[in-house]
């Protein structure tokens, strides 16, 4: 019964989205207040329906109702309670329902909060969002309904991949989806603005807060995913340039470019077309992210759900989004208006360079990810593009971003701003840059990494100067905006330094150890003290006691688990974190050695200063939140520009 109500609610949300599309369109075209109210109420009701449907899906998981195909495929009676709930969005159908819940929530939020001063544009945006809801809810209802029943009801669920039973991974998809789907607001507002023939400035002002919020959530989601990969997959890496990772990185880059270019468009009308273009691309790339993950067109370690038929659906949606959006852009971008122009050392010019580099990285990642696919369409197989390619091409661009970053906050809009004072100020940034470069040189970094470290030191000094110089800004809104900028830019520096430290190559050794034997990496001696059984509720496990000596003695307890229901082996790595980095120990398979001893493969690595990456991500997220608060405070005082 619950599943049938869920089905009904999905269909209801679908129908209400159609109403929202039509009524919103009519409200915008005829200026009709009743139509506007219908559109808004459709959006709110659709949200209620979608949220309740999602709640029902969770209830089905709590009941372990295996007559529902999705529950049978992704749950198991032995599964811990928290992961039964998390399984509701752990697979394709459920995550698609979550996607729709968020899409409808954005529709309701647009109807409620957006653009009080320009109802025509708002109604058009609500209508466009209704169209997006219609596309994705249609896909959900017809091609991946989580409430589908099974004819033969299994006694037991098929479980869930045990490596996915993890707190970080349980909250990773929702966070990521807030980011992906949040960008739909920017898409709808940009498309609505193009249809209405609004100027670039009005569009940029309208979409800025939504993009900022979405980008912040996207940052958090990606960081959680990287963190999970770091400690759960047991490879010691955190970023693999895997197609699925690239799929989330591209919208992130484009959204990062968008939140910067929208500032320039809002201030001076420059980059008006570019801002609208980025808004359309950001959500299109988010959808492509879902397509890449869910269709299985690209081979990837993350593609847990492989289904080409659904891929075809998403491809159709993609064509409508990107094709329709960009066609509209080509036809209407003339109305956006030209900017006032800007000088070579104005703030616009530096924001332009930021956008150029971010977009170039995004373009390179897109091209590199799709290149093997494109070539195989032409019958050329055997081309592989992996981490080494992306490191070689994307990293120099990302490092170059850091050179220009610290200047921008000191430059005036439109006018040339590089004067003696700024020259003197930037001279102060050289020393920290040299010191950071020297640090990178001493830890044996590659030339590119040394340069990146030097730029990071330079940028950090610039960020501190920015804070010092602008600390006297008046008002809470300006204060939150400044704090946001400082935190996010400092976060970028921390990530850059973390990536430099990581690039020096982690000392790593793998050896088969029998009990009592030792393994060493520079600075540490590890002894395998013993291996014991440490079975859990739904798995069997071997736990090694490894004694670590590095001046003082401590112990680490890495495990190897075998999940009986899923028939899968996983490794629970043991990590000892410190200022210098993480000692990372993974326990491998036991083997008979030629001397007759039973030896366990122990893999030890030292990952230098990984905490910098976590800190960087945290600072960027806090910065994004702070800037969002500043934006919201600013929006309250209608008409006032920051």
């Amino acid at each position: 019964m619950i599943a049938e109500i869920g089905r009904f609610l999905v269909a209801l949300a679908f129908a209400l989205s159609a109403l929202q599309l039509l009524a919103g369109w009519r409200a915008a075209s005829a200026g009709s207040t009743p139509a506007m109210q219908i559109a808004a109420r459709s959006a709110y009701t659709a949200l209620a329906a979608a949220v309740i449907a999602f709640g029902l899906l969770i209830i089905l998981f709590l009941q372990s109702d295996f007559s529902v195909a999705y529950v049978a495929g992704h749950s198991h009676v032995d599964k811990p309670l928290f992961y039964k709930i998390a399984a509701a969005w752990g697979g394709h159908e459920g995550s698609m329902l979550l996607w729709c819940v968020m899409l409808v929530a954005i529709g309701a939020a647009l109807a409620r909060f957006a653009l009080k001063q320009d109802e025509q544009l708002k109604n058009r945006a609500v209508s466009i969002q209704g169209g997006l809801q219609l596309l994705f809810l249609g896909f959900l209802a017809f091609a991946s309904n989580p409430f589908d029943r099974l004819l033969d009801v299994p006694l037991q669920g098929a479980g869930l991949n045990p490596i996915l039973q993890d707190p970080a991974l349980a909250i990773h998809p929702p966070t990521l989806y807030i980011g992906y789907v949040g960008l739909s607001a920017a898409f709808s507002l940009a498309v609505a603005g193009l249809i209405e023939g609004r100027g670039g400035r009005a569009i940029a002002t309208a979409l800025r807060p939504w993009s900022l919020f979405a980008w912040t959530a996207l940052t958090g989601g990606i960081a959680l995913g990287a963190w999970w990969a770091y400690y759960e997959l047991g490879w010691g890496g955190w970023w693999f340039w895997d197609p699925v990772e690239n799929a989330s990185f591209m919208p992130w880059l484009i959204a990062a470019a968008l939140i910067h270019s929208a500032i320039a468009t809002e201030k001076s009308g420059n980059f008006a077309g570019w801002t609208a273009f980025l808004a359309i691309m950001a959500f299109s790339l988010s959808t492509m992210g879902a397509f890449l993950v869910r269709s299985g067109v690209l081979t990837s370690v993350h593609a847990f759900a492989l289904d080409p038929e659904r891929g075809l659906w998403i491809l159709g949606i993609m064509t409508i989004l990107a094709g329709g959006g960009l066609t509209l852009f080509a036809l209407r971008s003339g109305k956006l208006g030209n900017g006032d122009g800007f000088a070579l050392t104005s703030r616009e010019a530096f924001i332009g360079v930021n956008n150029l580099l971010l977009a170039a990285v995004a373009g390179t990642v897109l091209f590199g990810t799709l290149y093997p696919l494109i070539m195989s369409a032409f019958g050329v197989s055997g081309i592989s593009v992996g981490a080494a390619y992306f490191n070689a091409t994307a990293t120099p661009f990302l490092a170059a971003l850091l050179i220009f970053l610290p200047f921008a906050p000191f430059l005036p809009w439109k006018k040339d701003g590089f004067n003696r004072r700024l020259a003197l100020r930037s001279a102060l940034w050289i020393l920290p840059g040299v010191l950071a470069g020297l640090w990178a040189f001493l830890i044996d970094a590659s030339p590119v990494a040394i340069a990146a470290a030097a730029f990071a030191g330079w940028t950090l000094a610039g960020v501190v100067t920015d804070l010092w110089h602008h600390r006297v800004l008046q008002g809470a809104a300006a204060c939150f905006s400044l704090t946001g900028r400082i935190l996010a830019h400092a976060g970028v520096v921390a990530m850059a330094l973390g990536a430099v430290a990581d690039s020096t190559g982690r000392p790593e050794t793998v050896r088969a150890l029998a009990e009592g034997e030792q393994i060493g990496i520079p600075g540490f001696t590890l002894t395998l003290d013993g291996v014991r059984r440490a079975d859990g509720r739904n798995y069997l496990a071997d736990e090694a006691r490894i004694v670590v000596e590095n001046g003082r003695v401590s112990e680490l307890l890495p495990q190897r688990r075998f999940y009986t229901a899923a028939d899968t082996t996983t490794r629970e790595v043991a990590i000892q974190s410190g200022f210098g980095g993480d000692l990372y120990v993974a326990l491998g398979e036991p083997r008979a050695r030629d001397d007759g001893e039973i030896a366990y493969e122990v893999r030890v690595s030292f990952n230098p200063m990984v905490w910098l990456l976590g800190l960087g991500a945290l600072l960027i997220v806090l910065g994004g939140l702070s800037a969002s608060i500043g934006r919201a405070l600013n929006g309250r005082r209608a008409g006032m520009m920051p």
Partner: protein
Amino acid sequence: MIQIFALVLLLQSVDLTPAQEMEAAHLMQEIRCVVCEGQSIADSDAALAQDMRLFVRTRIAAGATPDSVRIALAQRYGDEVLMRPRLTGRTLPLYAAPVILLLAGGLLIGVASRRR
């Protein structure tokens, strides 16, 4: 159960100098595992990756240059094992793309700046 206590394969070891060890580690990052295609052989758990790691270490220990090891692996497993594709006619667009993107974007900014 069986998987946990399966006793298979002898773990052979090759002794490398620290410099060779670095060279081998660097090289392994650039070779794709044929089993788990998203990963390099340095990151992969697959048995074949283990064999490939052993091959790399053995050759490096024997004094082979990283390039010759790369070529040997590409001959045996196909070009797709190279994570950083060699610059050939088929991969030229791949390396030209970033440069073209940068130039085209720079041109756009130049045009934007001149509008008054």
